[in-house]
Structures are given as structure tokens and as C-alpha cells.
């Protein structure tokens, strides 16, 4: 079962940031359940085989004021994909720092010879973020950058991955690959 974590403050944003990922999982017949980040219980983390932390809107700073709610990540060992705000949370939990880095719209990133859940070479992405990575968290490496800075991070030891862009818009197959092979 995949645990989808909703980090949105406004319920109307569920349709924009969580539902598109649910739809990808449904299309691939992946079992999942959704929890808001404030409602996660230990049994949810135990029942999840993998976790995806969804993104949030440009103006949503609610989760930035509730870092403690994500402390569970520090001792988590299962595959975890953080999208946009989710990637920022991942990095932050391991001492990473964020900086102002507004970006919205299409851009290209270059994975060069690396392959990241089926993405390789030059890839078109959709961005929607207010903050970016100033310093990535401990044991995280940068896998791809764009004109707007670091876009993809990966933990060197744990199966933790963070993407600043929104793969549910232009790179749905990446999410499918994470679910199958992450």
C-alpha cells in the first residue's frame, strides 16, 4: 500500500496536488491511502510499503510552521518520494536549508547519463514553487539541476528521493516507476 501524504492547508487544493497522484496510482492499479500530514499515525507508517509526500500551493506555508509533524521521517527506512514541498520537507529533516526561489511553468532539466525512475537526458518539467534548496540535507546528493537550481535529490543510503518539480503534470511515468521499483 502506498501512503499519500497531503500537506495542503486548504481542502480545495486536494484536487490539484493530491488527486492527480491518486489518479496515476489508480490507473496503475496500485493500492493506496491518503492521510493529511497532521493526522499520520504510527500504524499508517507501519502499513505503508512506500510513501509519497505531495506538493502544495505557492502560498501554502502551513507545513513550514509544523516541521515537528515530519519528525517520523528521520527514523523511516521505506521508500519515500517527496514532491515539491515534500522534497523540501525531506531535505529539511536532515538539516537542509531552503531559500527564496520562485519558479512557475515549464522548464527543462538534464539528467545527463543518469536515469531517475525512467527519466534520462533532457526532460521537460512543470515547476510551481516559492522556495528551493539552498543546502541539501545530510547524505543527500544532487541528481539534476535546472536554471532555477537543484531539482532532484537522492539520499545516499536510504531510498529517499525528492523532486522540486511536479511530475504529476509532465512526468507521470516517473511516479509509476517509483511505485513499481522505488
Amino acid at each position, binding site marked *: 500500500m502506498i501512503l499519500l501524504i497531503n500537506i495542503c492547508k*486548504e*481542502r*480545495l*487544493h486536494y*484536487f*490539484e496536488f493530491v*488527486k*492527480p497522484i491518486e*489518479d496515476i496510482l489508480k490507473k496503475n492499479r496500485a493500492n493506496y491511502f491518503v492521510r493529511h500530514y497532521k493526522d499520520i499515525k504510527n500504524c499508517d507508517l507501519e502499513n505503508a510499503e512506500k510513501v509519497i509526500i505531495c506538493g502544495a*500551493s*505557492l*502560498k501554502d506555508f502551513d507545513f513550514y510552521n509544523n516541521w515537528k509533524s515530519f519528525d517520523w521521517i528521520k527514523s523511516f527506512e521505506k521508500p519515500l518520494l517527496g514532491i515539491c514541498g515534500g522534497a523540501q520537507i525531506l531535505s529539511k529533516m536532515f538539516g537542509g536549508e531552503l531559500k527564496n526561489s*520562485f519558479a*512557475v*511553468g*515549464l522548464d527543462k532539466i538534464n539528467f545527463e547519463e543518469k536515469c531517475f525512475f525512467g527519466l534520462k537526458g533532457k526532460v521537460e518539467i*512543470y515547476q*510551481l514553487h*516559492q522556495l528551493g534548496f539552498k543546502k541539501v540535507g545530510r547524505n543527500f546528493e544532487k541528481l539534476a539541476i535546472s536554471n532555477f537550481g537543484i531539482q532532484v535529490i537522492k539520499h545516499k543510503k536510504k531510498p529517499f528521493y525528492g523532486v522540486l518539480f511536479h511530475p*504529476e*503534470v*509532465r512526468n507521470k511515468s516517473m511516479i509509476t516507476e517509483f511505485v513499481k521499483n522505488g
Partner: protein
Amino acid sequence: MKLGVLYSGGKDSTLAALIAKEEGYEISCLISIFSSNIESFMFHTPSIKKTGIQAEVMGIPLIVQNSEGKKEEELDDLRRAIFRAKEDYGIEGIVTGAIGSCYQASRVQKICRDLNLECFNPLWQKDQTEILEDLISRKFEIIVVGVFAYPLNETFLGRKIDLSFVREMEVLEEKYKINVAGEGGEYETFVLNCSLFSRQLAVKSFEDSGNGNSWRREVIVE
């Protein structure tokens, strides 16, 4: 939270408004851009001036902004309209019916950010067949008022969005890569009734114009 809806009179913006209302948000105003550029990539134009009567039957005030529709300059017109909505109605966010157009969505997101407003896109990335089926199950009454892609032609004008229309669009999608819900601008619609309306609108008369695979219907409704 008080919201303003970017409203074209078509199925997507109307559905987005309904979803916002269902989720407990207050729709304080509608915002329509009347673009004189009939080929605008940003704004829906067929029958756009009839949003006034739709706003009336929804009991929601309408802000209208005229635009010459010059590419990128038209965004200043949109910004002005949204600013007016913020000033006059105290909105804290904008709702759009954007489904997949990164071109449109990113531009609205930037404007909202600049004006310190939330931006909501409740149809974002939704499967287009599902959107049409959702509209039908919610008993929306919708007609086609513009077609702009091969092999659509004037025979589609006035067509109701029903299950046979959906099935036909799926065949066209398979054969010609048409977006089933017209997200690529292939066709535009006008809502005659839905649960937001106090009564059904009826088409009193209409005028068609165009040629080939580009046709528009200007409706007079009552």
C-alpha cells in the same frame, strides 16, 4: 475563504466554481475577460458576453474586463480584473477551470502570487473523459459554441454534451488526437443549466460564423 472564479461561461470554469462551493468556499464574484482577439490562447471567446446572464442566474456578481487580446499584454487586463475583484469583493483566492494547459495555469499562478492571492485549479490534470462524465452525472446542460480543430466543423455547433457526444469525442481522440474535453482549445462550450443556476437558460437565437474547421456560435439566451 472568499474566492473569485475566472469565468468563461463554459463547462470547465462552471464545474470548478461548483466544486469550490461544494468544498465550503464562498464564491464572491465571477471574473470574465471579454477579449476582442477571437484567437486568444488565454481566453475563451465564443458567447463570452453572455456570462452576464449566467452570473445573474447564479446570483453572483460579475466583473467584466475588456481586452484587446494582445499576447502577454492581455495578462495585464487579467491582472487588472483580479485586482478589482480583490479590492471590491475582498477575495483571497482565484479559482480556474484549468485542466492541463501549463501556458494558462502558469500565467494565472504568477498573477495570483503577485497579488498575494491563493490560486485553485480543482480540475488540474483530471482525466478529460471523467470530467465530461462528471458533468453529465451532475446534470449540467451544456452546448458547444465554438470548434477550432480538424475534423470538427459547423455541425458540432449547438451539440449537447451528452454520453453520445463523449463517445464520439473518444473516437476522434483516438483517430485525430483531439482532447476529449477540448482542453487544447479544440472546442468551447456554454452552460445553460447546472445546480448553481436558479433556472435553466434557453437559447433564443444564435448567429454562426466561420469556415472550414473554425466556427463560433454567438447565442442570445433568456
